[in-house]
């Protein structure tokens, strides 16, 4: 599903990622751990095409992301769901409209949009607040809306960057449980976090990054 071959990325000649080799199978739930500045966000950005690697190749669903034309990147992202630490919801749109956004950009019909948004909101338990604006929701609720937006399009891969970073332990636990449910439906999930609670609760394969290097990956024997 996801393969990285000798991937490196530099910012101002300083390596953010160095010679990363990685393979993630379809339906896996992988945790990307490491301290701040270890390269977790950079790795996720490379996967959804927000950055290009300086060296190496990245295959996502057999597509070489490193060589995708900029005009093809939106179509790659339509097969993914992305969850951010800061939620990134549109403040002037209500919950329903925020979640419907990925369907809107693909030109889904009104009927399909209503059905899929309702399903996604129900899956994360926030369907009763579909008419609310993000500002009227708690942090945990906003993160649920963000997850609903990420899964509304039935993505093959879900990428989450510090999804529990702004949440208290109880809410963080709920979010991880949501991811488990989504993963159980067959979605490949990669969660970048430095929160040990997430690691303990998820109890899945852990990739450890430090100073841009992959220092632990049980599957690769690291």
């Amino acid at each position, binding site marked *: 599903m996801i393969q990285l071959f000798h991937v490196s990325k530099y910012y101002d000649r300083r390596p953010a990622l160095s010679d990363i080799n990685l393979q993630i199978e379809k339906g896996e739930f992988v945790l990307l751990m490491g301290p701040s500045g270890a390269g977790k966000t950079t790795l996720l950005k490379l996967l959804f095409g*927000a950055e290009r690697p300086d060296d190496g190749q990245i295959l996502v669903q057999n597509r070489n992301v490193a060589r995708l034309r900029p005009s093809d990147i*939106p179509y790659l992202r339509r097969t993914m769901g992305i969850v951010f630490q800061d939620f990134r919801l549109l403040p002037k749109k209500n919950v329903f409209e925020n979640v419907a*956004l990925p369907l809107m950009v693909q030109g889904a019909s009104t009927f399909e949009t209503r059905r899929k948004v309702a399903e996604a909101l129900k899956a994360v338990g926030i369907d009763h607040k579909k008419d609310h604006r993000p500002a009227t929701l708690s942090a945990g609720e906003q993160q649920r809306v963000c997850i609903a937006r990420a899964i509304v399009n039935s993505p093959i891969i879900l990428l989450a960057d510090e999804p529990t970073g702004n949440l208290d332990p109880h809410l963080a636990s709920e979010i991880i449980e949501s991811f488990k449910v989504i993963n159980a439906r067959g979605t490949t999930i990669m969660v970048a976090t430095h929160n040990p609670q997430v690691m303990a609760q998820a109890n899945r394969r852990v990739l450890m990054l430090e100073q841009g290097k992959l220092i632990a990956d049980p599957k690769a024997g690291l």
Partner: protein
Amino acid sequence: MRRLAYLVKEAMTNIRLNRTTTLVAVASTAFTLACFGVFLLLYLNLRGVVSSLQDDIKVVVYLHDGLSAQGLSDLQQRLRSEREVAALSYVSKEQALADFREQFPSESHLLQGLGENPLPASFVVTLSPRFRSSEAVKQWVKRLTTVPGVGQVQYSRDWIENLATLVGFIELGAIAVGGILSAASVTIIASTIRLTLYARQNEIEILRMVGATGAFIKVPFLLEGAVLGAVGGLLSLAILRGGFDLFKLQLGPTGRFLGIESWLNFFPGHVSLWIIMAGLALGFTGSLVSLIQFGRASS
């Protein structure tokens, strides 16, 4: 279709939410197009005047007094066969005298002492539309003066030529002023859209993350610019119409007396439409410039 409705809704929402910048962009486009419109009004009206004057150009071919009846008939035949001649009328010496007395009754005593009628017979020639340009008339008159039996040839050339030259200058002025002001308008609209783009940077980023194509992100901004420009164009027409009516009112009885009022016309429908379209194009271009710059800055 649903996607288009969404994009149009986004553009309209953005216009509604950014009232001040929208107002500045509309006002600047309206001002630009109104300035250009003043030149255009002046140019179109003067061109109309020149055109109608050129339609009325009559060439008077004065004949030698000693021309025989046969010579007169031959000359008439010859003139009729000329491509330049659309119509021809003969004014005899007697008719010329009668006309003079009728037109200048207080001056008729000037001719009394001369005994013989001093006024020559003439042909009054109406020119074919194809040969009404200054150069064509000039060439033909030059050729005509060498024809036997023809004395003098007169036509009101100079001042019509001068007016045509003035219209030419106004045309150039309109192009120059229009060009400069259009550039200014594009810049102002580009700045307006750029402000919106930066204000909505997060939203654009979110749209990118959920798989929106460049076109999906850009279309609302292009629509916004086009709408602002078209509204500016419409406003400029309203300003011009108001100014035009006020000018006509100011002319009052003097203008009517001199016949100026009947020459003055506002833009015909298709020119008004072109002005609105010009506003739309300026707005669209402004947005496009801004999006290109924003794209470079954010990449």
